[in-house]
């Protein structure tokens, strides 16, 4: 048989084109069919949220260095992707985060001083997810994608026009749960947007060891849903693509996948040592693609951000950082017996005996043994 002939006609698809509206130098492509025609006010708001995100993110790192947090996974460099997606959210839409979504959580109003307690090592979900439409962060990789799918399916069955954003990392796409979530969502037409922040690494594992797929957006094909790829450091492109995907989903057209190409500028978490697996040169190259810088360039070229406005944003960011710090610094850890709260609605005697045991231990600590 003629072995040369039939090989892979459409497998070797060209790299899925990356939607980009704003290039790293701040040049805007108004002719793109994706142009969302955002007002200067909106763009300035986007800028503002990105700056706030970056500042609070930095504060978290500071707090970790000062021993106030146990660990923290920075989103430095991913502000464009997150704020772009945030601005695409409808009023009913929910976000199901992985753990690196500070930008989205800030934007949705999640009280940081409450939620950052999770990184502090205290009860970190002391707010009602329903109030902020921000689901509990999910550390077991990929698992949250199924919750986003189920929740969206619930909304569809309930007749509500609501979509969910399932945030997953590039690494997460290898998990069975993300696979199941995309399979289920597509078959059941759950209004979910799978929002992949492709920051090139899963801890130390680079994308090329994670998958042989031409792009992560190509994965959408195998689930029977649309998949787009955008420059995740371009807040406008990310916004346009996610907004389109969410609108489709809310309109009953089913789920979609968005791959936002970005880069994790910080360590995986504050416990990680990235010098072991990536070079300074790579980081230098990534720095040139910064999402905030390019939007600022655009705004300035349009005279849409003057010194004073920029200064105001900086000040607000400082205030917000200070607030977060004040809310966390040396915050109490909670009453130890709270361990037993909320485990069961229908708790029984045995369980309460263990609470009593802890109470007795606490009471005894000062007196007994040593």
């Amino acid at each position, binding site marked *: 048989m003629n072995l040369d002939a039939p090989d892979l006609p459409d497998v070797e698809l060209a790299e899925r084109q990356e939607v980009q509206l704003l290039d790293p130098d701040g040049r805007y492509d108004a002719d793109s069919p994706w142009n969302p025609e955002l007002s200067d006010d909106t763009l300035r708001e986007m800028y503002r949220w990105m700056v706030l995100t970056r500042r609070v993110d930095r504060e978290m790192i500071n707090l970790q260095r000062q021993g106030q947090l146990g660990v923290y996974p920075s989103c430095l460099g991913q502000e464009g992707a997150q704020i772009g997606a945030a601005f695409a959210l409808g009023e009913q839409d929910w976000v199901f985060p992985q753990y690196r979504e500070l930008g989205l959580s800030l934007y949705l109003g999640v009280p940081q001083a409450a939620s950052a307690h999770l990184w502090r090592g205290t*009860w970190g*979900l*002391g*707010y*009602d*997810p*329903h109030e902020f439409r921000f*689901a*509990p962060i*999910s550390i*077991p990789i990929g*698992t949250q*994608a*199924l*919750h*986003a*799918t*189920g*929740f*969206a*399916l*619930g*909304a569809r*069955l*309930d007749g509500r026009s609501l979509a969910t954003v399932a945030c997953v990392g590039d690494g997460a796409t290898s998990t*069975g*749960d993300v*696979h*199941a*979530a995309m*399979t*289920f969502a597509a*078959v*059941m037409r759950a209004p979910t947007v799978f929002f992949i922040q492709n920051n090139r690494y899963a801890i130390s594992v680079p994308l090329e060891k994670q998958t042989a797929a031409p792009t992560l957006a190509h994965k959408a094909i195998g689930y029977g849903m649309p998949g787009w790829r955008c420059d995740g450091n371009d807040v406008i492109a990310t916004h346009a693509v996610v907004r389109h995907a969410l609108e489709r989903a809310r309109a009953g057209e089913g789920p979609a996948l968005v791959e936002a190409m970005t880069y994790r500028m910080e360590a995986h978490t504050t416990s990680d040592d990235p010098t072991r697996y990536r070079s300074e040169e790579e980081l230098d190259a990534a720095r040139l693609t910064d999402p905030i810088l390019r939007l600022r360039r655009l705004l300035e070229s349009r005279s849409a951000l003057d010194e004073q406005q920029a200064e105001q944003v900086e000040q607000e960011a400082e205030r917000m950082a200070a607030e977060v710090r004040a809310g966390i610094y040396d915050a109490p850890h909670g009453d130890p017996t709270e361990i037993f*709260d*909320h*485990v*069961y*609605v*229908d*708790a*029984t*005697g*045995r*369980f309460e005996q263990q609470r009593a045991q802890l109470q007795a231990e606490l009471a005894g600590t000062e007196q007994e043994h040593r």
Partner: protein
Amino acid sequence: MATTTLAKALNTALRDLMAEDERVLVFGEDVGMLGGVFRVTDGLQAAFGEERCFDTPLSESGIVGTAIGLAMYGYRPVVEMQFDGFTYPAFEQIVSHLAKLPNRTRGTMRLPLTLRIPYGGGIGAVEHHSESPESYWVHTAGLTVFTPATPEDGYSMLREAVRSDDPVVFLEPKRRYWTRTETELPVRTEPARQAVVRRAGTDVSVFCYGPMVATALSAAEAAEEEGWSLEVVDLRSLAPLDEDTIIDSVTRTGRAIVVHEASRTLGLGAELAARIQERAFYHLEAPVLRATGFDTPYPPAKLESYWLPDEDRILDLVEQAMAA
């Protein structure tokens, strides 16, 4: 009086639950048109439509994870794992989320989800279809684990499970699906978290649940001929355990045997033995003994009768306990 089976009682419970509460959804593999491989969901799709009872793609993690999302939204999903041995792909969703989320979210996210699992051996099934995984769930804090032994309990306890705001693993003893009893449904039995003395006795307390209750009862009958009086306690709820009923019984009899199909090491018998000797140490006239499956993988169907505890294995221990 009508006669019913466990399978039919469970089916009726689901039907009644769905009729009463729109938030109850039933889904899993083959639960729709086929009605489930054991027909427990038979007719539900026809009665309530594809939006209330539907088939899913082949992923147990997908089923449980999606159900968690639906529960977060406000539904009360009742999902089926087709067999005990196929629950394992969902292990992460069950252990890392289902069991933990209410506590993690300080009660703001309750998960009123019922996970139905046909379990246990004795039906001559092929590999992976006869597992007794209850220890995995009982050890996992945050889960509630029920298992009915009779059609009446099947009906009543499933209703209680679905209506509970806690996530419940509902273990269905598949070899008793076709057990018939005379009963009129709906029926309401004792609260699910309560153990029930199925037969009173004075010499030895036999603790059992699910598939082994009938076995223990016939052992008790056989024992009577030997002059031994067995008290048979059906645990019903494996987590939490109704410790008071358990201790009360042992305190009266002074001897205890635990019966389960699961492998002995860290089977539920271990926990019962530990608790009984903790709380009834001075009442015990013999060690707590365990009539269980062996510490090997579940054997092929034609050998399962040698592996599974039966009346003889129980009676051997009764003899041992009485001789102590």
